[in-house]
């Protein structure tokens, strides 16, 4: 209260200045600690989020549902056309269903012949989206499963169809999923059928660009993009999307997951995933002495991008 010249503020003036200095120093310190040792502060963030967001849940669910109902209501205008279109699609789909059933039977027979065991590691936990990142500059969602349900940092999340993102920040009841569209997301991927290795690098747009493509001539729009097991980031073979070309000629990934409506997410259990325990654990190869597991001491001068 800026009445410094008033007589009654002879005490409060210096006290306020002291408080301001203390607060400012604390905030600077917090920011610097975050920059230097980000995993620790991010864990703290996960705990804060964990204790705050589930308490808002009782109000968030009805408000979100209400807004979605209003949006759905707007689409009633086109109900008739939609209905017609759906009927047409249904006719096509029933033909596909027939084909799929036949394929499934054939597949089951062949599996039986081969004695195949399905990979038990690729089981999943389903979570509900609680909240989004709340900022236009970050793309992430919070889901309602956490370390209590056995979620571990670094696991892949999918909706029913395609890859959605990567778990980063686990509280006991909630965890944060960094979406593929976030500016910090970098996913090693492979383009099929040419088999070229690329990085799908999020840039805060709906279709993340494809980086480090060796030979663009071998790739054409429509090719499938799947994850590779490179760097032990994700299990191999998860569908990311299709290659598309933007008007500027740049190749981008059109994501298979439905980002318009992220409601239920599957977190894939991946017990082979490398856990990030020290500051540079994910960047350095494992057999270096300071890579994490054998000696958990991070190098003091190691660049650390949070």
């Amino acid at each position, binding site marked *: *209260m*800026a*009445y410094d010249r*008033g007589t*009654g503020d002879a005490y409060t003036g210096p006290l*306020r200045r002291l*408080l*301001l200095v203390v*607060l*400012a120093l604390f*905030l*600077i*310190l*917090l*920011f610097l600690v*975050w*920059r230097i040792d980000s995993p620790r*502060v991010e864990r703290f*963030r996960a705990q*804060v*989020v964990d204790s*705050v*967001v589930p308490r*808002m849940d009782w*109000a*968030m669910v009805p*408000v*979100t549902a209400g*807004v*979605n109902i209003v949006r759905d209501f707007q689409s009633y205008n086109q109900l008739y056309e939609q209905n017609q279109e759906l009927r047409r699609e249904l006719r096509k789909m029933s033909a596909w269903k027939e084909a799929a059933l036949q394929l499934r039977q054939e597949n089951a027979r062949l599996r039986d012949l081969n004695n195949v065991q399905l990979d038990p590691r690729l089981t999943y936990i389903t979570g509900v*989206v*609680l*909240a*989004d*990142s*709340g*900022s*236009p*500059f*970050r*793309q*992430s*969602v*919070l889901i309602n499963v956490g370390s209590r349900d056995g979620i571990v940092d670094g696991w892949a999340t999918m909706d029913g169809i395609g890859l959605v993102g990567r778990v980063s920040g686990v509280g006991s009841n909630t965890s*944060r999923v960094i*979406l593929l*569209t976030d*500016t*910090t997301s970098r996913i090693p991927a492979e383009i099929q059928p040419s088999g070229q290795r690329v990085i799908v690098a999020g840039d*805060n*747009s*709906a279709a993340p660009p494809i980086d480090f493509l060796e030979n663009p001539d071998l790739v054409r729009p429509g090719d499938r993009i799947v994850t590779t097991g490179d760097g032990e980031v994700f299990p191999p073979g998860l569908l990311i999307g299709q290659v598309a070309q933007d008007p500027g000629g740049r190749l981008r990934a059109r994501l298979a997951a439905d*980002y*318009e*409506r*992220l409601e239920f997410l599957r977190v894939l259990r991946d017990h082979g995933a490398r856990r990030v325990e020290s500051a540079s654990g994910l960047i350095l190869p494992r057999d270096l002495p300071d890579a994490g597991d054998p000696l958990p001491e991070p190098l003091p001068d190691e660049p650390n*991008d*949070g």
Partner: protein
Amino acid sequence: MAEKNAAHLWLLRASYVMLALLFMFANLLPLKTTPQSWVGPDFLVAMTFAWALRRPEYVPMLSIAAVFLLADFLLHRPPGLWTLLVLLLSEWLKKRDRQVRENTFAAEWVTMAGAMFTLFLAYRMVLSILLVETGAFSLWAMQYGMTVAAYPLVVGLSYIAFGIRRTGPGETDHSGRKT
């Protein structure tokens, strides 16, 4: 009379915190999970600056720090930096309330726009010096413009809902002192 004033003061301080929680809640609603091509105004900053300029006693340092630190953690920002800048700028605005009070609304608006500009510029500069990803410049510019444009709205709503207005000459503050 003094007791009633004190109750009113604490009521408004509490409503600042409640409103801030409401803004965070609205931001966190998972309505749009695709990247956006436009950004709305940052109502939390606009409200804080408006109240700091008009009635500094309703936004004490500790509530600003607590509210913005919580927002930093919830909204996935680097913790501490945004809070620090908002805190320092709002203190600067509180110091200027005397000059602004005797001036027109346009002068107040310009002061606020300058503070916002400093806030955005300093935030982006510190982050880029420390090599932290800051997001597209166009989005930042848009958010700046929207927030400055929304300022009269925020001031108007604060006046209608909470009676936050500039103190005129000869008015007394919550403890009965002349301002």
